[in-house]
């Protein structure tokens, strides 16, 4: 009897463990890394910009623009679906923790969201990837181009942060003015959010169950995307934060969380590539070259730089934008809109003439183990993470590179 009385308390405690407080970022990094390995095992690693581009192409197709008539319907696009369910996962996470609200910022911020999204779209289509595909997945995939893309990202982030600091001093009107908040919950009220959270989660599981019979891989992507969105929202996993905060407030938690995820992913991806796990009918070489894009070096560098500018102005990278969309941050709705509208245009009309001008030596697939062997390639990535770790921790203590 006593046990029966205790039971609801224990369940509530369990629920609160997940949804009363934010999770440490490293918990997010590690679990996202594990899910990323799962995605690669069943098909291919995590990515975000391709899915958003798919949405955009379908919108243009809807308007009858002939260049996009061959766009794959989102329902059959693994990454188009992954991005959609990621928003649902974040929506569920925000609802469970009663953190969902429509947050409409001042007009200047909406404009920055759209411009940031558009810049991310140009960066992603030029540099072949975003902070997920060409960084969080690309670096553990031992792609030399991803490392170069990441250098570009850093440079873009630092420059855009300087702009934001300048804007705050000289142009404060951009980030102030009328704002609105709707549907917010508080401690005593708004329990509808928790119920809606259950409906969204269970509904997505049912969807995965329904497609499992005909498309097992898609079912895995749906479940993983839902969990990824929820994890991102609860741990506030944000790659802009990881790159930016050491230069802003000097905080290192966001960076260390991302590093934890990179380490886990590195182990899994290396094993998959080395042993050709899940190669199926494709060759082991094709498995090795998965998520190694023809972006080495200038293509990745410029693309990463433009992407870094965009994500910092928008306040969310591709995935950071998606999960904040689910949380109700309207600035990031504008970023997603800018991204999905500009991405197909950039991919079809802006990028091809630029890429044609580049010689092959500036846009080829660079697979690190081809040059350094597997041990050497893994060591290089480990060394980069170590140097980054030492830098952010030292900087946190000394504040040498922090703006405040």
């Amino acid at each position, binding site marked *: 009897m006593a046990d029966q009385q205790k039971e609801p308390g224990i369940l509530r405690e369990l629920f609160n463990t997940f949804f009363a407080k*934010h999770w440490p970022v490293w918990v997010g990094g590690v679990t996202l890394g594990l899910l990323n390995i799962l995605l690669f095992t069943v098909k291919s690693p995590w990515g975000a910009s391709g899915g958003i581009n798919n949405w955009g192409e379908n919108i243009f197709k809807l308007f009858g623009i002939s260049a996009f008539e061959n766009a794959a319907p989102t329902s059959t696009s693994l990454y188009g679906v992954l991005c959609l369910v990621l928003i649902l996962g974040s929506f569920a996470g925000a609802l469970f923790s009663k953190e969902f609200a429509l947050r409409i910022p001042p007009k200047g911020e909406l404009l920055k969201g759209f411009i940031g999204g558009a810049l991310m779209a140009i960066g992603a289509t030029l540099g072949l990837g975003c902070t997920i595909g060409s960084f969080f997945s690309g670096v553990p995939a031992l792609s030399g181009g991803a490392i170069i893309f990441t250098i570009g990202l850093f440079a873009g982030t630092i420059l855009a942060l300087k702009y*934001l600091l300048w804007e705050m001093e000289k142009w404060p009107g951009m980030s102030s003015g009328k704002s609105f908040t709707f549907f917010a919950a508080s401690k005593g009220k708004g329990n509808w959010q928790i119920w809606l959270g259950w409906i969204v989660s269970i509904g997505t599981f049912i969807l995965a169950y329904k497609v499992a019979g005909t498309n097992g891989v898609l079912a895995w992507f749906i479940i993983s995307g839902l969990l990824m969105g929820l994890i991102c929202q609860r741990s506030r996993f944000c790659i802009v934060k990881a790159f930016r905060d050491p230069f802003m407030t000097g*905080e290192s938690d966001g960076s260390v969380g991302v590093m934890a995820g990179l380490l886990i992913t590195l182990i899994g991806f290396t094993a998959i590539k080395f042993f050709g796990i899940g190669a199926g009918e494709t060759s082991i070489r094709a498995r090795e070259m998965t998520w190694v894009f023809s972006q080495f070096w200038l293509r990745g560098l410029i693309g990463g730089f433009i992407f870094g500018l965009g994500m910092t102005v928008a*306040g969310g990278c591709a995935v950071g934008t998606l999960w904040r969309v689910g949380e109700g941050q309207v600035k990031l709705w504008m970023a997603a809109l800018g991204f999905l509208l500009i991405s197909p245009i950039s991919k079809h009309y802006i990028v091809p003439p630029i890429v044609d001008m580049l010689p092959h030596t500036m846009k080829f697939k660079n697979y690190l183990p081809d040059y350094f062997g597997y041990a050497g390639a893994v060591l290089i990535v480990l060394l980069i993470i170590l140097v980054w770790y030492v830098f952010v921790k030292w900087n946190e203590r000394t504040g040498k590179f922090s703006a405040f």
Partner: protein
Amino acid sequence: MEIKETLDCKGLSCPMPMMKLAKAIKGLSSGEVLEMLGTDPGTKSDLPKWCEKTGNTIVEEGEVESGVFRFLIQKK
């Protein structure tokens, strides 16, 4: 407790609230109190971490209306 300045960050998302907060605190003298209003859930975990690091003190934390939180921060 006298509130020296109020910083309205309602509707703003990361990184604007933390940037504005760091700047506003910089402009205060030691012991003065800043009131901050905001709606970004991220600030609720970023702000205490930042205060711990910088030595500023959160003297009060609460909610003024649904979804709008309020922090009173005393400069070190």
